C-alpha cells in the first residue's frame, strides 16, 4: 500500500480527465479556486433552492386559469394604486427628512401681525438658498398629492371590484383608518409653512374641534395646543407630522400589506 496521499476529491485530475474547451476549463478552474477558499457551493445550493421555491409558488393567475379576459392588462394600473401610494409615501418621507434639516417650527421673529415668522422664513430659505431646495419642496408636495390621490383611487378600485368582501373586511376598515390618517398627514403638513392659508386652515381645525361636545376642548388642547393658534400649535403639528404620524402610518401600512400578503390579491371574478 502506497503511503502517497490519495485524493478522492482531486478536482484537477478530474478536470484533466475530461475533454473540455478552453472556456470551460477557465471557468471551472476559477470556480474551483474560489470555492476552495470561500465554499461558495453552499451558497449556490441555497440560491438554487430559493429559485425553485419561488418558481414552485407561481400558480397560474386567476385570469389565466379561467381565461377570463385576454385584455385584462389594461386594469393593471388600477391594481398598482396601493403600491403607488406606498412608494409615493416613501418619496415623501425621504424628501421630507431632507426638508426637516432646514425647517424650524417656530413662530418667533414676527414684529407685527402678518410679518414672516421663523417657520415661514426657513421655508423661504429652503426655496431660495438651499441647493436643490426648491425642487425638494416641490417633490415633497407632489409626493403628498400623489399619495392622497392614489389612496382615494385605490379605495374606489377596491370598492368597484368587490375586493373588500368576505375574508377582507378587516383590511377594508384598516384602509378607512389609513385614509383618515393620510388626510390628517396632509393637513398637518399644510399648516407647517405658517403661511396665510395654513393659518386659516388650522383655524378651521380648531373651530371644528371646539364645536364637538364633551371631548372637543380636550381634543383642541391635545392637537392644537390651545384654543388660539400660536407657537404651541405649530410645534404640535410638527411633532405629529414628523414623529407620531410616520410611526403610526408606517406600522398600519405594514399591517395592511401583511394582510394582503397572507390573503392574496382579490382579482375580479
Amino acid at each position, binding site marked *: 500500500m502506497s503511503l502517497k496521499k490519495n485524493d478522492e476529491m482531486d478536482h484537477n485530475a478530474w478536470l484533466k480527465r475530461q475533454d473540455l474547451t478552453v472556456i470551460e476549463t477557465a471557468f471551472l478552474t476559477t470556480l474551483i479556486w474560489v470555492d476552495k477558499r470561500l465554499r461558495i457551493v453552499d451558497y449556490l445550493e441555497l440560491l438554487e433552492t430559493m429559485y425553485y421555491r*419561488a418558481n414552485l*409558488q*407561481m*400558480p*397560474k*393567475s*386567476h385570469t389565466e*386559469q*379561467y381565461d*377570463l379576459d385576454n385584455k385584462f392588462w389594461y386594469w*393593471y394600473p388600477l*391594481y*398598482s394604486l396601493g*403600491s*403607488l401610494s406606498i412608494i*409615493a409615501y416613501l*418619496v415623501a418621507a425621504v424628501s421630507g427628512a431632507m426638508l426637516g434639516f432646514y425647517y424650524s417650527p417656530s413662530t418667533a421673529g414676527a414684529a407685527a401681525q*402678518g*410679518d414672516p*415668522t421663523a417657520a415661514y422664513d426657513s*421655508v423661504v430659505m429652503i426655496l431660495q438658498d438651499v441647493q436643490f431646495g426648491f*425642487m425638494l*419642496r*416641490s*417633490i415633497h*408636495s*407632489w*409626493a403628498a398629492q400623489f399619495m392622497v390621490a392614489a389612496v382615494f383611487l385605490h379605495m*374606489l378600485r377596491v*370598492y*368597484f*371590484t*368587490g375586493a373588500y*368582501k*368576505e375574508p*377582507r*373586511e378587516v383590511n*377594508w376598515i384598516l384602509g*378607512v383608518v389609513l385614509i383618515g390618517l393620510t388626510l390628517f398627514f396632509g*393637513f398637518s403638513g*399644510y399648516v407647517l*409653512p*405658517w*403661511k*396665510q*392659508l395654513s393659518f*386659516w386652515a388650522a383655524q*378651521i381645525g380648531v373651530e*371644528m374641534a371646539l*364645536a*364637538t*361636545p364633551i371631548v372637543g376642548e380636550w381634543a383642541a388642547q391635545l392637537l392644537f395646543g390651545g384654543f388660539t*393658534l400660536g407657537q404651541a400649535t405649530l410645534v404640535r403639528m410638527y411633532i405629529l407630522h414628523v414623529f407620531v404620524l410616520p410611526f403610526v402610518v408606517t406600522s398600519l401600512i405594514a399591517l395592511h400589506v401583511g394582510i394582503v*400578503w397572507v*390573503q*392574496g*390579491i*382579490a382579482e*375580479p*371574478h
Partner: protein
Amino acid sequence: MTDDNEPMTDGGTDEDARTDGGPPATVPPDDETPTWSERKERSQGLAQLTYQYFERSRREDEDLRAESTYVERDVLGFPAWPHETIRNLAITSFFIGMLIFIAALMPPHFGHPANPGSTPAIILPDWYLYWSFGLLKLNPLNPQLAVLDGNILLGNEFLGIIAHGIVFGAIGLVPFLNKGSARRPVEEPFWAGVGVTGVVLSLTLAALAIQNFFPFELDLLVTLTFLLPVLCGIITYAVLKTMREGYMYDLNRRYYMLRPPK
C-alpha cells in the same frame, strides 16, 4: 435511614418512592398525568374550543381540496409575490417618474405669511379636503325648530362633524352589508349605483366648498349637491341592469360553469 416514616414534603410517607439511602425519587406518572396528545387536545374551556376549531378548519380545507376538480390550487386570490410585486414595481416606477417630472414642471405656489388679523376672502384646504370642507357648509340644512323660537338645535360646525362621522361610518359598514361572491359591478347594479352616488357626492360637496368662486344660487347648489349624486346613482343602476343580462351570459359561459357561485 433513621426516620423512614418521616413525612415527605407533600405530606405522604411513600416507602416505594424512596431509593436506598438516597433522596426521594421522582414521583412516577400515574393514570391522571395527561399524555402529550391529551395535553395538546386541551380538554376544557376556550383552549378546547380553539383546538376543535383548528382541527375542523384543517379538515374542511382538506375536504375542499379533495373535492376540487382543479389541478392547480383553489385560487381565491393570487400571490402578492411575485406576480403582483413585479407588475406593480414596473407600473409604479413609471408614475414616480411622472411625479418628479410634474414636480419639476409645476412647483407648488407659496403664499403670504400668516396674518391672524386679516381673514382672507377665500379659505381653502388642499383639494383632497374639499369634500370635508363642503360638509362643514351644510348649515342651510340645519333644522331650525319652531319650538326653540327658530333657534338651531346643533351648532353648524357640529352638524358638519356629525356628517363626517356618518360618511366614515357608512364606508366602514360596506363589507358587512354587501356580502356574497359577486365581484364585478355588472353583477351588482345596486352596489355599483351606491358607489357612483358616493363618488359624485364627494365631487358635489367639493363644489359646495368652493361656492364663493362662482355666482350660483346657494339653495339650488345645496339641492344639487344631494340630487345630482342620487341621479347619477340611478342612471348607473339602470345602465348596469340593462347590460347585466348579456354580460352575465358571457360570465356564466366562461366562468361560473367552472366555478359556480355560492
